[in-house]
């Protein structure tokens, strides 16, 4: 920890970072007790975009809750759709045809790359670099066009259904995926030369925001935050769902425990997602896209079910309690950024303000997902 936590001299002052602040990417307020420019204590305050999805889950039928999942983490909405749909399929034991599973994996990984690209642009913008944001958005626009041609929407998707997907993909979507992967693969070295190898950025990220494996375990941090602390935990590999076991992709793990490690994890994950897309587009089978006997009214048997999925920010889990009727009895949404943000209060002690923002950027927070 380069920044030494000075003993809190008498005149500390309280600085409110947010809820309107360019670096919080949403309405998060962090109450910082500052001594000069050093942070003595940081306490995130939530609730500014709390819409109570869990109560909506209780007074909507199982099918009607689907659009809500896209509104929680709008950067990786398809993973949230995927998790909710898999949960109900597990509860009501509905079979999903092969082609639908492949389409789900392809669109999910495309959405993960678009989420990582947006994080990359916004993160370098927090550190002061403007141009990489525009290059990243240029690439992200390709993905949004691809997904729009299939799902119809660009950000908050509602494309998956219980037992399959809303409608089929055609050949030029698959060719579009191949062309996109080729284009992004040729652009990645440019990102690394412009940003990763830049001495200013390296000085900004190395040894900043120290979150080690033990702190991750105590705070339940998952996703790139845990993988940046040397923990090899990825729900796609660890608790396999859908057809992920059929693809070979590796999980980037960096033992650095600092912002640079978390940054590198996400950059490598984009490469892995591209590999998955290539394999999935190559091996997509023909066949129906919707399960033949998907029941119109979903009435899962009594009891509670849990399903977890790997989103761009970590493991997103839903615990649904069903009482046999067609509306859920209780819908608990375990979002990854909620646990990742808790580490900020601990890790930001004694840091400088710009370093704390580098740390917050490396956590890749999406505030509506924290507040639900």
């Amino acid at each position, binding site marked *: 920890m380069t920044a030494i936590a000075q003993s809190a001299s008498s005149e500390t002052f309280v600085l409110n970072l947010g809820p309107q602040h360019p670096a919080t990417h949403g309405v998060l307020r962090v109450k910082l007790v500052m001594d000069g420019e050093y942070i003595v204590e940081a306490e995130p305050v939530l609730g500014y975009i709390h819409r109570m999805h869990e109560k909506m889950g209780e007074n909507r039928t199982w099918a009607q809750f689907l659009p809500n999942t896209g509104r929680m983490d709008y950067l990786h909405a398809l993973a949230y759709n995927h998790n909710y749909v898999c949960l109900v399929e597990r509860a009501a034991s509905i079979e999903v045809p092969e082609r639908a599973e492949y389409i789900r994996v392809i669109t999910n990984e495309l959405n993960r790359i678009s989420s990582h690209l947006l994080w990359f642009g916004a993160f370098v913008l927090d550190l*002061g670099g403007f141009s990489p944001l*525009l290059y990243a958005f240029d690439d992200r626009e390709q993905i949004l066009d691809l997904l729009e041609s299939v799902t119809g929407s660009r950000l908050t998707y509602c494309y998956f259904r219980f037992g399959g997907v809303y409608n089929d993909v055609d050949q030029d979507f698959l060719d579009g995926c191949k062309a996109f992967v080729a284009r992004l693969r040729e652009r990645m070295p440019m990102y690394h030369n412009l940003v990763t190898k830049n001495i200013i950025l390296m000085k900004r990220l190395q040894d900043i925001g120290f979150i080690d494996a033990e702190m991750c375990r105590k705070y339940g941090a998952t996703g790139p935050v845990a993988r940046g602390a040397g923990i090899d935990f990825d729900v796609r590999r660890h608790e396999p769902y859908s057809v992920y076991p059929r693809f070979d992709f590796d999980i980037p793990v960096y033992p650095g425990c600092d912002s640079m490690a978390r940054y590198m994890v996400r950059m490598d994950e984009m490469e892995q997602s591209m590999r998955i897309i290539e394999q999935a587009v190559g091996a997509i089978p023909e066949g129906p896209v919707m399960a033949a006997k998907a029941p119109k009214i979903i009435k899962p048997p009594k009891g509670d079910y849990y399903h977890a999925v790997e989103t761009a920010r970590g493991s997103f889990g839903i615990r649904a309690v069903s009482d046999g009727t067609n509306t859920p009895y209780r819908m608990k949404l375990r979002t990854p950024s909620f646990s990742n943000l808790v580490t900020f209060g601990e890790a930001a002690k004694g840091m400088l303000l710009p370093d704390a923002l580098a740390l917050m950027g490396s956590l890749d927070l999406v505030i509506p997902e924290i507040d639900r």
Partner: protein
Amino acid sequence: MTIDSELLRLLLYVVGFIAFIATNAAYLVWLERKEAGHIQCRIGPKEVGPFGLLQPVADGLKLMTKQLIIPKGADSFLFRLGPVLVMTPAVMCFVTIPYSDTIVARNLDVGLLAIFAFASVNVLGLLLGAWGSRNKYAVISAARVVSQNVAYEIPMLIVIVTMVMVTGTMNLHEVVTSQNGGFWHWNIFRFSASPLMPVAFLIYFVCMLAETNRAPFDMAEAESELVAGAFTEYPGMGFGVFFMGEYANIVVGTSMATILFLGGWNCPFGLWPGLHWFLIKMYALIFTVIWIRWTFPRTTFYSLLNLSWKVLIPVAFANLILTSALLKVL
């Protein structure tokens, strides 16, 4: 009463300089937005006037129409004094800059010293403005501005001392005439004085960036941390005057670089020296300043001070000692 011709000439020069600074500040904003646009594969302002040339005029009018609100509890005198103290030294620096053989307001023998004396006053303006606006973010940025400018004043002045030693005079007109002839006469390539001359130019350029709070060193006005830093509370023309002061400082910094290192108004091939060469070199340097801004992220505060105390100052001292040794020997 008769007006002394010298006084009239000076008056005309002052009016000319203020006009130059005002239009320059406006059109440097336009250049910056156009260049940032093209670097980021987009176009930049295009709607207002041909190629967006009237956009700065529109921005200026918009700034002037805004109401100047003084925050409650702020020290209104310091609040108003801030922008003034940033703008006037910038204008004063233009007095002794020789734009061409004949175009100079007042060719002082200690022209170089005068410019750098005025250049260090704008820190005071930023500090007073930030402190007067009673805003936490402004106070943090004021503390940063002061220590940043102090840290970067020293290597800049060491390089200036080396250049004075090489050219032997502080009179800017003679500095440029000593570099007459082709570009091999320019100070940047004067390897006879010291092989590290291009490095000295680099150090001067980096210090000039830090001095005007630009590019990787824009800690004072760090958008993503301190919202708008020292001038968070300045609406309308208060912010406009700060902006003009900043761009005037850039013009002063780049023109000093042109004079000291790139041979002022001399033509690279020694054919038709004149004002146009001075402006070409200056705007090339300004293009680089903007280019650097849209490429690099911002440094943190302690690595900024590390860079100055651990890299720039030692190398500047080495250059100083080397030059004095070589001058003694040759």
